[in-house]
């Protein structure tokens, strides 16, 4: 029964600095996105496709979501799939630097309407994602075959590569270059949100929900059917949109949405059957993520079937998906993975040989549960306010501020854990 979870090879884990730099930087870029929404106020909602709002969205999706996911994948591919990411230290250094800088340059270009900065930011982001996709897919090819999680990671990386290509075409079209006419921006959003974010969270959940939340494993059908349906839906939607067949495109997008809904419901059902009844910030974060995913799909449905209902529904769907679903799942994982990586690193440094007696702090000492819960409550409030700003755009300003505080607090808590680990190592030296 547990064979699917037994294949972890944590001794293959990369050096601590490879994933950690991504995980510690990302929350502060998300905080920047919150501040950008606060600065924009109601215009973030009512003009969400204008330059400044697109800038805020990229600060969050590139600087936070993609930043964390890249760091996590550099850890997961060797540990879960037994694969080898080529030149992982160099890839980590280059991709991290580019992902930290590019959303700021791109954002400045989009917000201020400066084509040169927009082009430079897009080029830097494209370089980061191209390097990461190439290294990640090379790593996937070295993984043991047949693992559902590795399959989902592979699909997510292909989706990221496609989203990047569509994003570049959208940027060129925006800069009035002569590119073939097509809804490139829509394709970019679809493959980025549903493909890259959706497939990756799914594949990671199959591993981490049973392991960390003490639930039964996902049944094989609950893994494979949603993943296949998500892929089929995205491909069908893209082809139908390109061919101009709106009803087929809508139906295909519905299939992809149903795949994500099935994943959310399966996860909630497993969480209800968990073996240990202790409260845990990660468990609550993942519950919030799944509920937000279902709410996002509901709002997306309203926005799709009632185009006259106004931009608020699309805004609510987007914020519930990005901040509520992706943001909460990432937050929950960060609360587990950062202290664990630090603890493991300390153990290896302090107990390298028989007889070593230096004390390694417990995980809860590195990042106390009460502090995680405090941040999570603030995060949940931010998600609710952001979604409600769809109906009442005046809420965008307080929502952005609360989100900025919540993400800053997340970054501070993770940094405090890293500093506590450093102090423990220094004290033992």
């Amino acid at each position, binding site marked *: 029964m547990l064979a699917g979870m037994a294949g972890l090879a944590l001794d293959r884990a990369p050096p601590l600095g490879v994933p950690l730099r991504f995980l510690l930087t990302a929350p502060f870029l998300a905080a920047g996105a919150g501040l950008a929404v606060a600065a924009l106020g109601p215009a973030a909602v009512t003009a969400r496709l204008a330059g400044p709002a697109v800038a805020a969205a990229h600060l969050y999706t590139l600087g936070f979501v993609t930043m964390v996911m890249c760091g996590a994948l550099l850890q997961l591919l060797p540990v879960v799939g037994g694969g080898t990411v080529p030149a992982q230290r160099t890839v980590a250094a280059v991709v991290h630097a580019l992902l930290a800088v590019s959303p700021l340059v791109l954002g400045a270009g989009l917000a201020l309407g400066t084509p040169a900065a927009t082009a430079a930011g897009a080029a830097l982001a494209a370089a980061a994602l191209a390097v990461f996709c190439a290294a990640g897919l090379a790593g996937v090819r070295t993984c043991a075959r047949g693992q559902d999680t590795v399959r989902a990671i592979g699909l997510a990386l292909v989706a990221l590569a496609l989203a990047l290509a569509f994003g570049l075409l959208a940027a060129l079209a925006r800069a009035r270059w002569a590119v073939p006419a097509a809804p490139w921006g829509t394709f970019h959003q679809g493959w980025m949100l549903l493909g890259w974010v959706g497939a990756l969270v799914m594949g990671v959940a199959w591993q981490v929900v049973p392991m960390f939340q003490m639930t039964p494993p996902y049944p094989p059908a609950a893994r494979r059917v949603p993943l296949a349906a998500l892929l089929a839906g995205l491909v069908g939607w893209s082809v139908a949109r390109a061919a101009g067949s709106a009803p087929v495109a809508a139906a295909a997008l519905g299939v992809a949405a149903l795949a994500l809904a099935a994943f959310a419901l399966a996860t909630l059902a497993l969480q209800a059957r968990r*073996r240990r009844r202790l409260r845990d910030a990660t468990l609550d974060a993942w519950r919030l993520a799944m509920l937000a995913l279902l709410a996002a799909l509901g709002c997306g449905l309203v926005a799709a079937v009632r185009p006259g209902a106004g931009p608020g529904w699309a805004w609510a769907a987007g914020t519930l998906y990005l901040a509520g679903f992706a943001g909460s799942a990432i937050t929950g994982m960060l609360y587990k993975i950062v202290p664990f990586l630090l603890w*493991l690193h300390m153990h290896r440094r302090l107990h390298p040989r028989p007889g070593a007696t230096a004390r390694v702090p417990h995980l809860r000492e590195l990042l106390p549960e009460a502090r995680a819960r405090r941040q999570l409550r603030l995060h949940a409030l931010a998600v609710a306010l952001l979604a409600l700003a769809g109906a009442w755009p005046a809420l965008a300003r307080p929502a952005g501020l609360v989100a900025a505080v919540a993400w800053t607090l997340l970054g501070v808590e993770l940094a405090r854990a890293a500093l506590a680990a450093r102090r423990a190592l220094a004290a033992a030296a």
Partner: protein
Amino acid sequence: MSPGEPEVAARERRLDVRELEPPEPLERALAALPGLGPGEYLHMLHRREPLLLYDLLEAQGFRHCAREGPEAPWEIFIWREGDEAARAAAEAACHGG
């Protein structure tokens, strides 16, 4: 006795971590090992194979034998390197039980 607390039984010390979430099983095992007396081995009951623990055991001078079931999805028998009595008892339990 709460789950995860070692209890002494002849030459065997049992540690049931089936209900604990990672990495508590690892923490409990590493905390229990220094207390092993001569001739004693640790019998861990786990719901998954603790591959990471093996890596850390080697570094700290312990050896192990693991099997699937029958008492738990995974059972791991751990003894101090050089303790022949513990090794013989642990391996007999691992291969025989």
